[in-house]
Structure formats: C-alpha cells, structure tokens
C-alpha cells in the first residue's frame, strides 16, 4: 500500500541532491524520447551546444531570462505573504499598456531618457493598480485571491485585444489590427549586446533581498506571511501590510511589462506577456522565493526555452517534440519538489494491521 506523508527533516544539502538528480533524470528521459523518435541525441546535443556557445546565443538567452526573473521576483514578494498572486500575466500586460498610454500622449520631441523614465513609472503604476482590486477584496472580505488574480489576467488580455482591434488600431498599419509601435527613442539602450534590462534585474534582485531582510516593511511582510495572528499580536495592521506587499508585487510585474515593451517587443499586443507571468510562478516556487536563486533558475528556464527553439531550427526536430522535451524537464523539476516536501511510504504489513484495526 502507498501512503503520502509530509517530510519533517529534509536538509538543504539533500534537497539540492534531489534537484540535481531530477535534472539528470529529465535529460536522460529526453534523450530516450529523442532516440525513440529516430533522432540521434548525441547529434542534437552537439548541435545545441555549438549553438549555445556563441555570444549571440548567450545574449538571446539573457534577453529571455530578464522578464522571467523580474516577474518571478514580483510574484515572490506576494508569495512571501502567502498571497497567491497568479495574476502576473495580467499585471505585465497592464504595465505595458500604461507605458504605451503615457508614451502616446508625450510630445514627439520628448528626449528618450525622459520618455523611458515616464514609461517605467507608468508600468509600475499600471501593474500595481491591476493588483489592487484582488488585494482589496482579500483584505476586506477575505475572498480567494487565487481566483481573482487569475480572472484579472483574462480581463487584461481581452482589454489589450480590444485596444488592438478597435480603440488604438494603428491607421498606419493599413487595415492590419495592430497598435502603433513605441517611438524608437523609447527603446532601451544596449549594453554588452543586451538591452539594459539585465542591469535592472540584478539591481532589483538585490533590492528585493535587502527589502525582505533588512527593512521595516520587509520585516512586516515576512511576519504577515508566516503568521497573521502573530503579526496582529505584534501590532501590525495585517490588511495594510498585505495591501502594500501586493501593490509592490503588482508594480514589479508591471515594470516587467514595460521592460518587455521597451526592450524587445516595441509594440503592445496581448501576446506580449507570452506566458511569462505563469512561468514566473514556477520559477519563484522552484527557487524557494529566494532572489539570488531566482536569477539562476530564470536563466535555466530561458536556456530551456532557447534550446527548444534550436532543436527545431538547427537539429530539425519537430517543434512538438521540442515542446515535449521542455515539458519533461518541467515535470521532473516539479516532481522533485514533491519528493523534497513529501515522502511516499510503502507498507507491506498494512493489510494485517488494518484487519486488526477493524475487528
């Protein structure tokens, strides 16, 4: 018989061991799958490796990793409070929407730096405002934030779609339903081959760490997350702390949207977030909500995404198979988390014992 129990005593080192084992198993399984489909895994590895080694490839992976890491930092603040914000996807979109809106009303001659700054502020505000209603409802009526933040994603997606097809349809696009791209002066400048979003991510990761460990507000956020009752006992206003933390989380997600917009997409569309808001949840969770680990895991996810692209492009493997490999890796990663937190107990003597228990 099988039974599942919580693990009480998983040490940090053993947890790392389990995770490494999971990655190896995932690679092994992927190799077998590729082999079974009639391709040579060694050849695939060789092609991918040669692709990955180039600086250009590295730059492209970092470009993918930037929004993933930022969004993961965003949701991890809410998760620290046990506020399950799964609305990063929508907050990213609304951040990008707010940035686009600001940009469209600025006079044409606005200097690039000023425009970028204002758009960043708008991104922060847009994301925060989009996170506000679920937070208010939770603080005031204890509604389930999971549902609300999730639904707000779809509202955001439809809203941007409406903008694209109706309200903000670009007349210059000759009937094609598209929003006008942001001016070139608003594109994020490049540094070492990648837009400066990467510096921003490093700074944000550091700030977030400082925020949670070293600031008054961060202390409150952590205590509320661990035990609302203790927080109340210590005189904290739980609702206000919750609101603050969620707004911060939303604001960061919104800024992620702006960085995507000004860094890579340059035009607002509903696929701008592209699932990053959801991937970010997995990244934050796998990283144990730790900012430095998020940076690493986000990069690994970016490599995985990129690798899948190459499999298709360079090794000629169909995209469905590449997606399957990606799914396999994710499956093993999440599975390992399960084994780190729980254990399965096999019992042979169970049957006899149960008979005794029901005379």
């Amino acid at each position, binding site marked *: 018989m099988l039974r599942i129990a919580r693990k009480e005593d998983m040490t940090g080192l053993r947890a790392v061991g389990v995770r490494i084992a999971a990655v190896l198993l995932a690679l092994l399984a992927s190799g077998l799958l590729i082999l079974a489909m009639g391709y040579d895994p060694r050849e695939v590895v060789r092609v991918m490796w040669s692709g990955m080694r180039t600086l250009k490839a590295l730059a492209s992976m970092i470009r993918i990793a930037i929004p993933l890491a930022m969004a993961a930092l965003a949701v991890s603040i809410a998760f620290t409070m046990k506020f399950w914000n799964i609305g990063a996807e929508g907050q990213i979109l609304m951040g990008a929407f707010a940035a686009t809106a600001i940009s469209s009303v600025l006079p044409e001659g606005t200097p690039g730096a000023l425009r970028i700054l204002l758009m960043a502020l708008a991104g922060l505000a847009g994301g925060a405002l989009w996170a506000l209603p679920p937070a208010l409802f939770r603080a005031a009526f204890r509604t389930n934030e999971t549902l609300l933040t999730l639904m707000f994603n779809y509202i955001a997606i439809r809203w941007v779609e409406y903008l694209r097809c109706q309200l903000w349809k670009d007349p210059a696009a000759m009937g094609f339903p598209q929003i006008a791209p942001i001016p070139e002066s608003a594109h994020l400048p490049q540094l070492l081959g990648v837009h400066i979003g990467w510096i921003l991510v490093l700074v944000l990761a550091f700030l977030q760490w400082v925020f949670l460990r070293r*600031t008054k507000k961060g*202390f409150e956020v952590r205590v509320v997350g661990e035990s609302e009752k203790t927080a109340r006992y210590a*005189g904290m206003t739980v609702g206000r702390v919750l609101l603050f933390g969620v707004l911060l989380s939303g604001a960061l997600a919104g800024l992620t949207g702006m960085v995507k917009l000004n860094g890579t997409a340059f035009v607002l569309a509903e696929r701008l977030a592209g699932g990053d808001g959801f991937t970010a949840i997995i990244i934050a969770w796998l990283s144990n909500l730790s900012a430095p680990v998020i940076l690493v895991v986000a990069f690994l996810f970016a490599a995985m995404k990129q690798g899948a692209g190459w499999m298709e492009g360079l090794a000629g493997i169909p995209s469905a198979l590449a997606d399957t490999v990606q799914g396999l890796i994710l499956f093993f990663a999440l599975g390992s988390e399960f084994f780190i937190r729980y254990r399965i107990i096999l019992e042979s003597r169970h049957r006899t014992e149960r008979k005794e*228990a*029901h005379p």
Partner: protein
Amino acid sequence: MEPIVEMIGIRKEFPGIVANDDVNLQLLKGEIHAVLGENGAGKSTLMSILFGLYQPEAGRILVRGREVRIQNPNVANDLKIGMVHQHFKLVHNFTVTENIILGLEPMVGLGALDTKKAAARIREMSTRYGLNVDPDARIEEITVGMQQRVEILKMLYRNAEILIFDEPTSVLTPQEIHELMGILKGLVREGRSILLITHKLKEIKEVADRCTVLRRGRVVGTVTVADTTEARMAEMMVGRKVSFAVDKAPAKPGAVTLEIRNLSVMGNRKVLGLRDFSLEVRKGEIVGVAGVDGNGQAELVEALTGMRRAESGQVLLNGTDITADSVRQRIRKGIAHIPEDRHKHGLVLDYSLEDNMILELYDQPPFARRGLLDREAIRPYAEKILSDFDVRSGKGVDSNARDLSGGNQQKAIVGREIELDPEVLIAVQPTRGLDVGAIEYIHRRLVEQRDGGKAVLLVSLELDEIQNLSDRIAVLFRGERMGLLEASATDENEIGLLMAGVQGKGGAA
C-alpha cells in the same frame, strides 16, 4: 514486571547542542514512568527518538526484549508505540474521525474510506475509556482538552500499548488534568505502559510509579516515586534547592495605572463573553484573574490588548482612554502581553530568535533607522534577553524559534515582554510548560516588575500561581466578575466557590 522498552546509551546531537548524552531509560510493562527535567533537558528529544522522529547518533533500543531500529513513526506504530505530542498534530478542518483514521487508510486504492464504521468504533472506545469525544465534531470546534483526548483515541485506535505523553497537562485546565489522571490510571490497569513527561511534581506523585530525571541531556537517576518527595525530585532536576513559595514583601500600591470600566466584549460565538467587567490595577501591585478556562479570560485579554473590539465600556491607561487605540498604539503606550498560545501568537516559528525578540520593536530606533533594520543593534538586544532569561538554544540568537524546547520558547517570550519594561504587563499563563526552576525565576521577575512600580495583570488557570503571586484576586465566572478578594485574606475554598459561580462575600469588594 519485565521491561517493555529499554533505551540504552542513547546519544543525540543538534547543531551546537547535545540533547541526549548516554541516556538509559527502562519502561516496565504496566507502569506509569515519569520523565522529569529542566526545559531543554532533552525529554521531548528522547521520546521523539523512541517514536522514530529522530535517529540517535549512538545507543540501542529494545522493545519487548528485541533490539529494534525505529526509522520512522510507522515502525513505531507497528511496534505499538503511540505518542501525544507537546503540540498537537491534528488537522483543524477535519472531523475527529477523519483525524483518527488519517494515515491509516491507504491514499491510493479503491473506494471511499469507511468512515461510518470507524466512527462507530471510535464512539465505542470513547465510552469505554470515558473520553467523551464526539467522532463527528470538527477539531476547530472542540476544546484543547478534547483535542488531546482525540490524540489519545488516535493511539488507542492503533492498538498502541506503549503510550508516550509529552507534557499532556500543560494545556489543560485543573479539571481536565484530574480527568486525564483518571484516564491514565485506567490505561495501565489494562496492561498498557505509559511514559509521561511533565513539569508538575504533584502529578508525578499522583500517578507515576517511577521517575527518571534528566539534566542537560544526561540521566541524573531513576527513583521510585513512593519513596521520594517533590522537593527531592526538584532538587535532582535543577541541581539545587528550589523554593516553591514566592517570597515577596507586601505590595505598596500607588496610583491606578489600568482602569477597566464596565467592559463588555463579544465572544467567538457571538454572545457576550465578558459582561460589564470593571477592575483597577494600580502601580506596584499584581492583580490575578482566576477562573475556569473559557469564562471570559480570552475576551478580557484581547480587549485590553486591542486584538478584539469592546462592545461597550472603557479601558483607561494612566487616566487616558485607550479603548479605541490599535494594538500598536497600546504597545507604544506601555501595554505588554505574554500571550496564552505561544505558537499561534507569540512567535514566528520559522524565524530566528533574533527576529522574534524584536517583534514589537522592529520599527523603533535604535533597531530601525530610516526604514532599515540595524542588525548591529538588534543582535546584542536579543542576546541580552536570552542570557537574562536563561533561554537555551543550540545556536544562540540564530536558532529558529521552532528548534527550541517548549519551555525555552516560553522563556523567550516572557523575556521579550518584560524587557519592554511596560506600564502594564498582561501575563497570561506565563509559566505554562516551564520547569520548577524557571517558574521560580519568572515569578521572581514578575514580582520585581511589581516592586519597580509597574502594574501586573496575571491571568492564570492555576490557582497556586494566582495565590502565590497576586496581591488582589478577581474571579471570573461566565464572563462576569464574581468577586474581588484581597489575596492575604482569602483561601482556596473561597476562590474555588466563586470560580464555580457561588456568590460569596467578596462580590461587593
């Protein structure tokens, strides 16, 4: 009688501390064997080893004469060893039945659990042992005493013969303790064997056959309870003579610090839990609030600390009305609170002691400047509390609160609140789970607080504690003040009658 369990040369280390060092313990079949020791002496650790929660670094365990390796609680379960933990492990939104069969039923396999049959069996067992448990009640709806009986049923349901109780009485009311003692005696009469951890020597005297005393991880000795005295056991345990009475000079009360005027507070069941309650606490006195658990103590305390709104009436601190103030404002004005439930309210279990010691002060200079925490200031402050109150932990202020022994957690909270040097200290069950040495110390600190001209409101279910410490005693019954007595002019009988709702002469005081 033959030994049913033998633990030989057990050693267990935690980072920075040896919790068990060459420990020998022998449990005879059909006996109640008490395990006594200071806070942090290693009692819970030793029991957890027997129950398979920890693996010892050295030593052997024999059960029914056979050497065994208890790798996890399932092995213990198969050996018919059961344990009621110091802090219960029940799932709150599950029913009693679900909790009891939880883990017994396979998760995979056919069909739903046969809860009906289980419930019937639980009901039958509950009557047989006089446990009075309703199998269909939800855990969150039943009292702590009842929850404990659910834990007992859980062991019996699994046919456990070796029963471990880790401080079962520290969460019980005197009445429930009395019942539990009866239950324990009944269980050994049936041939079961019991290991009982408790800090209360009276209980050991009452039910235990033998007692093994631990100090700092080592066995001091095993004694036959009938041949020894409480004082002797206490001395073995702390290594010096312990005085049970608190010696204190008569109080010199000053001006009124805390004034409670006609306070009414809603209870959890949407009826008034506290009704028209008035009381004054003056500088330099300890006022005790006695009463059977659930007679309005929680409502009173929460209304005083600001965690619950008052329906009517006022709370005044040094003459100013604080009824509408938030918890934070009251803390700033000088109200400190040792909470009843250290896990639920008092501590953030997964945080370091360092963080826990500044729970109320983190936003004040010198601990915070311009929004940033100053670890340089926080650390010595936390270290000072730990050393003043003899809080023992493996890694000092870096230990997580969760890793402390129960009594050391309590000492840390008491230390933190006294260190606030409040105008009014509201102490709820301040010595719950403490060893006699620590109780003596905490009591002395409370009296010191009083002698320093501060007001202390002591809420306790233990009459001994109330009588020992208080200068005046208010008795609560069904949310009302039954009487206000001068401690020096009353006795147990009078208080006891008032606690039972029998109006006495003190009613008008």
